[in-house]
């Protein structure tokens, strides 16, 4: 009987760092990139391709999985293993891959329609399970590929082809949703900030379990400027609240801060008129209520909005626990034998034993 251990073809393992100088080119496929000119996706692709070499994981040991939507094309442009799956199902597909193969570096690329609407269930359960994968959610607050309908992150009143009189749907707050789903790593970044995004990717890659990163992504064709208030200079400087673990939350070039108000709620105030004791010190490992409150500081990115890591906690990783159960059952009961299994329980023999 053959050994059920799958023949692996020399998987390199996670981040050994022994790989000789990988470059951006090693992660860039030969496929022509076909997003609209000016789309924020280009910047994200370039940043991710530049970042991947630093992990020291071979592209052959890396898998990108995506769903449907403009973001779904991402997979084709990464020179790694990749699956472009069905609308919304990428987290489930990636769960199969990551659980079967803890040796792989698994990345999911999704969008606000893909991940939060049709695939909402898979997303929250992947976050809950803490599967070892990194989820990049490109939030452009619109359906791009289907040519401009409102999405589950579009603001109320949004006028689109499917809502000519304005949307009456209340949008999701993706960060709050991820926190509510018990995600162990939750962060937000913006498409045009190479440094910030790289830093977040680095922290996400180092995290054990599911890392959820919302990326504000400009769809210049159907929802241009949706994030200008936090993305573009000069407003961005005033409105980006950059979260740093262990640091007082101060922004707007040191002029404003996040403090605990008299009613116990977080509020934004001038630093000069605030008792330094009341300035909130960010803590990614603490209770989720702080992260939740920070996520709700602004419901829409048109006012001071947090970017950075909201929460990062350690929890058992789903795939590791799954594989460990198999290993411990095998140790306890011995390697299963089909012969023994078939003869387990009551049997009887007729005539000469065969």
């Amino acid at each position, binding site marked *: *009987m*053959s*050994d*059920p*251990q*799958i*023949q*692996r*073809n*020399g998987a390199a393992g996670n981040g050994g760092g022994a790989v000789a100088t990988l470059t951006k080119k090693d992660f860039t496929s030969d*496929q022509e990139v076909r997003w609209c000119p000016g789309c924020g996706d280009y910047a994200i692709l370039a940043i991710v391709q530049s970042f991947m070499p630093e992990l020291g994981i071979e*592209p*052959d*040991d*890396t*898998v990108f999985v995506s769903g449907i939507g403009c973001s779904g094309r991402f*997979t*084709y442009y*990464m*020179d790694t*293993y*990749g*699956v*472009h*799956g*069905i609308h919304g199902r990428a987290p*489930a*597909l990636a*769960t*199969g*891959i990551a*659980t*079967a*193969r803890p*040796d792989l570096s698994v990345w999911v690329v999704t969008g606000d329609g893909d991940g939060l609407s049709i695939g909402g*269930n*898979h997303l929250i*359960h992947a976050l809950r399970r803490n599967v070892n994968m990194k989820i990049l959610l490109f939030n452009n607050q619109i359906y791009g590929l289907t040519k401009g309908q409102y999405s589950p992150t579009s603001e109320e009143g949004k006028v689109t082809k499917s809502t000519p009189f304005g949307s009456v749907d209340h949008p999701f707050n993706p960060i709050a949703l991820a926190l509510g789903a018990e995600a162990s790593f939750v962060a937000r970044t913006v498409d045009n900030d190479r440094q910030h995004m790289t830093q977040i990717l680095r922290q996400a890659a180092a995290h054990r379990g599911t890392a959820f990163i919302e990326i504000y992504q400009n769809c210049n064709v159907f929802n241009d400027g949706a994030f200008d208030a936090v993305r573009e200079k000069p407003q961005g400087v005033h409105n980006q609240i950059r979260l740093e673990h262990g640091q007082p939350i101060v922004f707007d070039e040191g002029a404003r801060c996040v403090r605990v108000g008299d009613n116990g709620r977080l509020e934004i105030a001038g630093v000069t008129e605030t008792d330094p004791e009341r300035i909130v010190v960010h803590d990614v490992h603490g209770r989720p209520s702080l992260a939740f409150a920070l996520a709700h500081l602004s419901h829409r990115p048109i006012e001071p909005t947090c970017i950075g890591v909201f929460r990062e906690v350690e929890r058992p990783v789903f795939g590791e626990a799954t*594989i460990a159960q*198999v290993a411990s*059952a*095998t140790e*306890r*009961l011995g*390697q*299963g*034998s*089909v012969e023994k*299994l*078939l*003869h387990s*329980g*009551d*049997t*009887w*023999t*007729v*005539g000469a*034993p*065969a």
Partner: protein
Amino acid sequence: MCRGYPPRGLELTQGAKGPAPAVMTKQVEEKKRVVVRFAGDSGDGMQLTGDRFTNATAVLGNDLATLPDFPAEIRAPAGTVHGVSAFQIQFASTDILTPGDHPNVLVAMNPAALKAELGTVERGGTIIVNEDAFNARNLEKAGFAADPLTDGTLEGYQVYRVPMTSITVRAVEELGLTRKEAERSKNMFALGLLSWMYGRPVDVTLNWLHKKFGDKQQLYDANVAAFKAGYNFGETTELFATSYVVKPAPVAPGTYRNISGATALAWGLVAASQRSGLRLFYASYPITPASELLHELSRLKNFGVITLQAEDEIAAANVALGAAFAGDLGVTGTSGPGMDLKAETLGLAVTLELPMVVVDVQRAGPSTGMPTKTEQADLLLAMFGRHGESPLPIVAAKSPSHCFEAAMEAARIAVKYRTPVILLSDTFIANSSEPWLIPDADELPTIDPNFATGPNAGQEFLPYLRDENLARPWAIPGTKGLRHRIGGLEKEDGTGDISYDPQNHERMTHLRADKVTKIADEVPPVEVDDPDGDAELLVVGWGSTFGTIRAAARRVRDQGRKVATAHVVHMSPFPPNLGEVLSRYQKVLVPEQNLGQLALLVRGRFLVDATSYTKVQGQPIFAEELETEILRMMEER
């Protein structure tokens, strides 16, 4: 050893055996075949009773077939007809093919069970009731206006009134159980009584009780006491004058076991995993009646099996597909409603051309339908239930033990041809059991995963370059230099790159279809059972009607008439000789538990004027019903 209860309140009712002699000399009568049906409230443990009776029967060497039949509600209102749970077994000294049409013996634990089941009992059959349950309240709940034990309802049956509850309570009274706990053992009393009646080996049940309750002394003692009380009741009281023997059936030499379809299917998947060296990754969402597969496989972790209970049916399918991409034997299992949801992923699997097995344990539909009742109405869904041209192979298990072989075959086709395969089972096959000649594990077919290890086109790797079977390479992540991207968008032949080229789409559509069609080259020809080779009528079936069709044919032949039968296991592609076989017969009858799905297919594919015979009552077709239909068709000119 008899726990001192004086038989009390034992009166002989109409038709019961006459007064027994003062000194007991019990008669022993030989029977060729017997059908027993245990029926009671859902909480009465009838499935367990039936199951244990079955195991003792199997070990004795009788041929057997079983039919569990239980309500969808977990705790239907006690004492009502909805809440009746039944288990039927036919056992014989000859080979048998079905659980039997009409029970010879009905064990009714309460009035509702009698009410629900009486109609199926053969005329003049034996009815054993738990007399204690026939009180005014229970009679009313069952909807009896008068007591059927005394109002003449049971005229013509042999009725045995046994106060099972009270004897059980007395048998266990020294054990210090509450009355409720004590009463709960009455199913073991019934099992003991029937074990005596049919000479079933006692040690099989006692050993099982020891294994099950060995560490819970009080429960163990109670169950053993109740079982023995039932057995001794038969042996020592005057009520039963006769016991029966059913001799072992002559079968091929070898080691046998009893096996249900659910277990056989799970074990078949495990065997496929071991014989391919691929780890089994089973992802599933709880659904009746497929959950048994998830339960069984979850126990078998030491075979390297990974099981994942997904958030929904769609996720389960995607997880299995992801596992397949990663290099495992990805399997998902469900029933009809879940199949609807998995259609999308099946389409993706068809175009990704990755190996995957999807098990559909069919149940009565549409929608939620009758979740615990059997039907075989998903054939056309399996065949066509996806958008676009998305052909895939389909294997249908024909009996409980055949599920083992069918599961291995489904996995073999999936791996060899890099394709999703649908494996059809149904509630009847999954829940019922039969003796099985255990195969030699070392003789089971092997499956070669044949992973891609290097470039296949000069220095290049083309993920959609096909082999002689039109199968594409399976290059799993981690394989050096073979990284590639695949997806749901149409792919260019060979390279797998996205392509909207019209000619390419046509070529790929044909290639995907041809790949499935080509599997027929190695599908074994359908076997025809036509003893003299000159029957005019052929009965063609698929799935769980296998036993019924053979049993009906036997009945017809016993009358000196000729009939041929054939059973299809490979539903897609069909066996290569099926068209030729169909065309050999003047008349073709297709019995199915749907409204004629295989009939539609054979008419469409082979231009055969097949006649459809259908039954959709959540119950298997009875041999008697099919016999009547065959004879009717023979008369037709």
